[in-house]
């Protein structure tokens, strides 16, 4: 991927990620999150991780975002109005986030491998999905089944939580 496209998608992702936090209207936040996830999917594709990029679009930009928008519409949430900003909490949060960014910059500055470019790939006879699937069903078979149980438990939990209690 040419460097121009990397910076384009990275800035797209970061700008809309910041828009998620800064927007007062929850619907606008959710739609900014979709754009941010699409930029992230493009970055995954730039790293030759096509399967992860597709999954990102399908699961996040598709299913998870529909869930968010559905809940926002269901609860009929409006933009917060008239609420004063608590300046002490706001400056505290921004300062802690800035310290985190400075920390990350200094760690990456001391990290030798971070200055190297990515090595080139060989042409593979099998594709991305095949390679990940083979690993998933051989080395990571037990975690895969545990994740299956986890998703089942989450489904049951959601049904129980959203059931109305008889009065």
């Amino acid at each position, binding site marked *: 991927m040419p460097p121009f496209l*990397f910076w384009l998608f990275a800035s797209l992702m970061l700008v809309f990620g910041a828009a998620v936090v800064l927007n007062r209207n929850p619907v606008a*936040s959710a739609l900014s999150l979709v754009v*941010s996830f699409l930029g992230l999917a493009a970055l995954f594709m730039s790293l030759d*991780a096509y399967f992860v990029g597709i999954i990102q679009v399908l699961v996040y930009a598709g299913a998870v975002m529909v869930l968010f928008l559905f809940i926002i519409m269901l*609860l009929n*949430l409006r933009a917060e109005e008239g609420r004063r900003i608590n300046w002490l909490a706001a400056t505290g949060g921004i300062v802690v986030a800035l310290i985190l960014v400075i920390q990350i910059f200094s760690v990456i500055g001391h990290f030798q491998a971070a200055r190297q*470019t990515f090595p*080139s790939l060989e042409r593979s006879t099998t594709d991305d999905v095949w390679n990940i699937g083979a690993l998933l069903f051989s080395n990571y078979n037990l975690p895969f089944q545990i994740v299956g149980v*986890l998703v089942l438990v989450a489904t049951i939990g959601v049904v129980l939580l959203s059931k109305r209690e008889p009065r």
Partner: protein
Amino acid sequence: MITLGDYLIVSGILFAIGFAGVMLRRNLIIILMSLELMLNAANLSLVAFSRFRVSPAGLPNYNAQVFVFFIITVAAAEVAVGLAILVALFRARQTTDVKDISELKF
């Protein structure tokens, strides 16, 4: 050329944005969205390292991509449960503001 550090810095800034969202916002839905941003920042650095550690056969290190797959699955389950709790809370209190739900018992 784009180096590994560029991806790591972008991922770190995305994580910080999500972190600031959790600290600053009081709307529970926005806090959940910021959590998603933080999980995705972790995914980005995992995929960058996967592309960086090329195996002798010339393929990326797929272990990291399997890990990203697991993170996405768990994050989807987490969002579903979180939003269900949010709906149950909204039924009880008609609010999604964390300032209004600071008591343990109601």
